[in-house]
């Protein structure tokens, strides 16, 4: 049940993604902080209540009797408006729900469904992660404790961004530990030590 509203889910159950290997396991799922939905939730509430506002304005202009509108039109318009309101709410919620950042035992994945008619799927192997940086800026991010995690990789796509995720420092620490462990297992690991930092800045 937690998966429907939470933005930080550790060890999720019954979850898999496109291209997941059989020996791979999802360890962490992140989404944009729920507070980032406030804008469209307010718009959805406004759209749902728009007929009430319209009637209120008509009443202010002296129109108090709506019997001129045939009953069939009233029914069809009301039904249509409920569908439009639901459609807006549903599409915005789905965009938020399915736009996820996944950390698995092998890679990090960024699935982005911005604008509802657009899909972007980016991934980077844990062994390709070179640097992690998080940023919290602005009043809203400080108050609700969310921010952006930048994942620098050695792959073709240089950077993956986990935007507006809750507790970015915690997520950074988790991915950092995981990456270090994977690199150690492969015998290539010096992730996060001074040498790798110096090598990058020079």
């Amino acid at each position, binding site marked *: 049940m937690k*998966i*429907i509203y939470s933005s930080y889910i550790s060890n*999720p159950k*019954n*979850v*898999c*993604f*496109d291209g997941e290997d059989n020996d791979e396991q999802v360890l962490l799922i992140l989404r944009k902080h729920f507070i980032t939905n406030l804008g469209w939730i307010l718009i959805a509430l406004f759209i749902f209540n728009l007929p009430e506002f319209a009637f209120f304005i008509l009443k202010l202009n002296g*129109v108090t009797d709506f*019997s*001129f*509108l*045939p009953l*069939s*039109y009233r*029914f*069809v*318009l009301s*039904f*249509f408006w409920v*569908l*439009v309101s*639901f*459609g807006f709410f*549903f*599409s915005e919620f*789905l965009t938020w*729900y*399915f736009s*996820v950042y*996944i950390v698995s035992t092998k890679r990090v994945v960024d*699935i982005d*469904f911005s604008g*509802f*008619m657009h*899909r972007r*799927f980016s991934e980077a192997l844990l062994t390709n992660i070179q640097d992690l940086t998080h940023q919290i800026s602005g009043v809203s991010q400080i108050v609700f404790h969310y921010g952006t995690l930048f994942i620098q990789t050695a792959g073709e796509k240089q950077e993956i961004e986990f935007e507006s995720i809750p507790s970015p420092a915690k997520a950074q620490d988790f991915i950092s530990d995981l990456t270090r462990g994977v690199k150690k297992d492969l015998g290539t690991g010096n992730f996060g030590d001074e040498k790798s930092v110096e090598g990058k800045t020079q």
Partner: protein
Amino acid sequence: MITLADLFSNEIFLLAAKVSLLALQLMYAVFAFIVLRQVGLMHRTFQTSFGILFKSLALIHFLGVVFLILLSVFLL
């Protein structure tokens, strides 16, 4: 002065209102169909236990619009 009551008793105005409403509903039906297809794509990309629920809601939403169009054709 023409009142709203006069407008809605005019046959031509009612026909124009019906055609406009049907055109809006047809456009919305296209959107509802895109939502239905997109939910399928979303569910294939990231599968959770709520995927079936979302697909069902998208289907009900689309069927609701189709029902409304049929209702408008016969009722208005």
